[in-house]
C-alpha cells in the first residue's frame, strides 16, 4: 500500500528516523509531530474519541521501543502506520470490542441517527463513522479511509476476504443513509 506523506530518501525525516533509532528523543519528537495527526485520526476513527489519546500515546511509545527493528524497507510512515493499526487491533481484541463486530444484525441499520446533510459535512462524516457498528467501522476505515485492500484487511483481522467485503458494503450503505438523509 502507498501512503501519503512518505518521505523521500535523504530527507530530514529520514535523518530523524536514524537519530531517533539511536536514542535521540528530540528527533523522535519531530517524528511525533509530523505523524501525530494521521495516527490520532486513525485511532479516533477506529476506536473512539475517548480512547484515541491514550492509544496514540501507546503507539508512539511502542514505536520508540521498536525503532531498532525498522530496516527502511518501506517508508517510515508506512511502517509506523502498520504498527499503529496493529496496536489498534490489539486494543479492540483486548477489550473484546470485536465480540459482535461481524454481526450481520440488520437492525444495525437503525443505529444511525439519520438526518439531512448539513453544511459541516466533515463533522457529519466523522460522526457517521463514530456511529457505525464496530465491525463495519474498522473495515470502512481501513479500506476506504486508509487504503488497505481486502486481502490485507483479512490478514490483519483474521477474517475471510468475503466477510471484509460484506462489512465494507454494509458500512458504505450506512454512511450513505446518514450523509444523504434518505
Amino acid at each position, binding site marked *: 500500500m502507498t501512503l501519503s506523506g512518505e518521505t523521500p530518501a535523504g530527507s530530514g525525516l529520514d535523518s530523524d528516523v536514524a537519530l531517533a533509532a539511536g536514542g535521540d*528523543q528530540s528527533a523522535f519528537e519531530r517524528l511525533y509531530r509530523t505523524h501525530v495527526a494521521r495516527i490520532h*485520526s486513525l485511532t479516533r476513527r477506529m476506536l473512539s474519541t475517548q480512547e484515541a489519546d491514550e492509544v496514540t500515546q501507546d503507539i508512539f511509545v511502542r514505536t520508540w521501543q521498536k525503532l531498532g527493528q525498522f530496516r527502511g524497507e518501506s517508508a517510515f510512515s508506512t511502517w509506523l502506520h502498520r504498527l499503529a493499526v496493529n496496536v489498534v487491533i490489539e486494543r479492540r481484541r483486548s477489550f473484546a470490542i470485536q465480540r459482535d463486530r461481524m454481526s450481520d444484525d440488520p437492525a444495525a441499520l437503525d443505529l444511525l441517527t439519520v438526518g439531512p446533510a448539513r453544511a459541516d459535512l466533515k463533522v457529519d462524516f466523522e460522526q457517521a463513522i463514530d456511529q457505525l457498528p464496530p465491525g463495519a467501522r474498522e473495515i470502512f476505515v481501513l479500506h476506504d*479511509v486508509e487504503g488497505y485492500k481486502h486481502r490485507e484487511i483479512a490478514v490483519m483481522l483474521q477474517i475471510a476476504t468475503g466477510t471484509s467485503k460484506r462489512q465494507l458494503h454494509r458500512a458504505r*450503505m450506512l454512511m*450513505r443513509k446518514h*450523509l444523504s438523509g434518505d
Partner: protein
Amino acid sequence: MHQEWTDQLSDYLDGELSADERDAVEAHLRTCAPCAAVLDDLKRVVARAATAAARPPDADLWAGIAARIETGGAASPGRVMPFGRREARRFTFTLPQLAAAAALLIAVSGGLAWNAAERIGAADPSVSVAQPPQTPQTADADAASPAAATGAAEFARVENVGMADAQYDAAVADLEKALKDGRGRLDASTIAIVEHNLQIIDQAINQARDALAGDPANSYLSSHLVEARRRKLDLLRRATALATETN
C-alpha cells in the same frame, strides 16, 4: 431499488466482480434509476472517505509520551533503565569514561538550556547551541558490589523523575550528601568535571522553570524540565556510585 443488485455495488465500484458479473450489473443499472442513484451515493461516500482530513489531537500528547519513554521505553537496549533496577549494580567508570559522559552531558544540557532560552526569548550566549546527542551509555555492571549497593540504597526510591518537587529535592539532597561524604575518595579532576556539569544542568533546570513560570501549560517545556531533572539525578547517582566504589 433492488437489494440483489445494490448488494453488488461496492464490489462493482472496487473492481471486485468478474467480467460477467460486471456486465450484468451495468445492464441492470441502465434500466434502474434507483439502483443507479445508490451507486452515485456510494461513489460519493468513497470519495469523501478517501479525502478525509487528518486532524491532530486537541491536546498535545508529547509530554505523556516523553515521560513514558523516560521511565522505561528505551529505543535501544540499555539506553534508559528504571532507577530502581540499578541498585545492585557495580559501576566501573574510569576517568576517561566519566569525562566522555560529561562532554555529552554538556552538550545535552546546552541543548536543553537553548530550548528553554529560546522559548522565553532570552538566549544566553554562554550556553552552547547543540542538538541533544544520544544519551551516554550506561556503564556495564559486572557484578553486584555491597559497597555500591549501600550507596545506591539511599536513592533506590527514586523511581522516576515525574515526582513531586519535595520528593525530588529530597532525593537530590540525599545524593549530594552521599557525594559530599565520598568526595575525599575522588580525585580533583573528577570532582571538577562533576561539579561543572551539575552547574550546567542546574542552569538548564532553572531556565526551564523560568520559562514554565511564564507558560505553565507548555508541555514541551515540561518535558525538558523532566529531562533535565532526570539527568541531574543520573549524574549524581553515577558520581556517588563512583565515590562509593572507590572506597
